[in-house]
């Protein structure tokens, strides 16, 4: 069996695991590491439900091989926060009702997290552009945008008076 030993840092934790080269990163995360917050929504690299951060940048984990994560850092939605201690992005989605079924939500929050790291004060247009690789079938995107704006405001230091 042509398995490779890879070492991936997932949500800050180093993990060493043997994988077939053909194993997709999404499957390593969901089935190998039981981190099922990352979702698989399409077969065509369109929907972005599988989005994770790869060295801080959003990638579609269904369109990456697990072996490509060897030596790299992955952040999944589980790395943002926990139920008792939501991070500002998660809080924003809660406060602004930024989800309905929740299937696209982990991808949305991770892409938006990367956006805010680069642009702490995005306009609505910036947000819509950055999220254009993440599809939502439920919400019509309005509240997702509001959620990201909420998180951006929470994370910015208060303006000097």
């Amino acid at each position: 069996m042509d398995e490779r030993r890879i070492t991936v840092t997932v949500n800050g934790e180093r993990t060493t695991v043997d994988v077939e080269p053909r194993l997709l990163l999404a499957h390593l995360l969901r089935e190998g590491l039981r981190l099922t917050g990352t979702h698989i929504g399409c077969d065509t690299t369109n929907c972005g439900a599988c989005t994770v951060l790869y060295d801080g940048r959003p990638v579609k984990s269904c369109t990456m091989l697990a072996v490509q994560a060897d030596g790299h850092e992955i952040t999944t939605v589980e790395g943002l926060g926990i139920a008792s201690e939501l991070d500002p992005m998660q809080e924003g989605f809660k406060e602004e009702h930024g989800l309905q079924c929740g299937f696209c939500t982990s991808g949305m929050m991770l892409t938006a997290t990367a956006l805010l790291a680069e642009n702490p004060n995005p306009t609505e247009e910036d947000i819509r552009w950055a999220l254009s690789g993440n599809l939502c079938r439920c919400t019509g995107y309005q509240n997702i945008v509001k959620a990201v704006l909420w998180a951006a405001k929470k994370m910015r230091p208060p303006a000097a008076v």
Partner: protein
Amino acid sequence: MYPSRFRYEAPRSLDEAVNLMGTYGDEAKVLAGGQSLIPLIKLRFAAPELLVDINNIPGLGFHQAEPDGTLRIGALCRHNDLERSELLRSRQPTMAAAAPLIADPIVRNRGTLVGSLCHADPQGDWASVMMALGAEIVAVAVNNRRTIPVSQFVTGPFQSALRPGEIAIEARVPPPQGTVSGTYFKLERRVGDFATVGVAVALESNGETVTRAGIALTGVGPFNIQATAAEEALVGKALDSNVIEQAANLAAEAAQPKSDHRGSAEYKRNVVHTFVMRALGRSVAQAA
């Protein structure tokens, strides 16, 4: 869906990669961004024996202008790098206009321009841009290095001129001789869709007349189409409304659209005409 079994190597040098490709020939595929290749192998439309992952090879992620004005884009330069490029914004309006329109922002973090050319999707945007610019590809194999004009690089749908054992390592845009103008327009039903119609226009002028014209079309033929007659109608002329209209007509004639769920053939031909009119009109405005 997931791929069938394959061998995988991640060489750390170009020499190593080239040797692997030379050994395995047409059973091997290069993995760069993977945003076209991995979807193909997931659906099992392709089943290479060996994937040669070039992401760990240093020195391929660049894009830069040489002293003589040649623009070089390395094999690992991501669409995103080009989207954010100040160099492109200031010097290469056709490429700068196209970069943000490729796929979606997440795919753009991984996908590469060179990879897109090699994949030769008939609805790929970069091939039209690079054809309009008269660009070329540098391909290396064991003991061989050659340069292939992009106009000869795409040989059919998903077919490139690369021979087994060759790796495309960079794309090169020749130095402009005159004032550069141009743009890329893409009509898509939604972000991330393939182009219903894409039009690349790249012009050079001496201040009065057009000295070089490149016009290439996406999504309206079996592969990207260079609108040669339209280009020739522009060279040596000043961009007045008659000249623009004539070029737009010729470009529309060069298109070979098919009616499908993205639109009728007549509609697509009309969009080609409109886009060429607009792009040339913009060049006039830019020069003013």
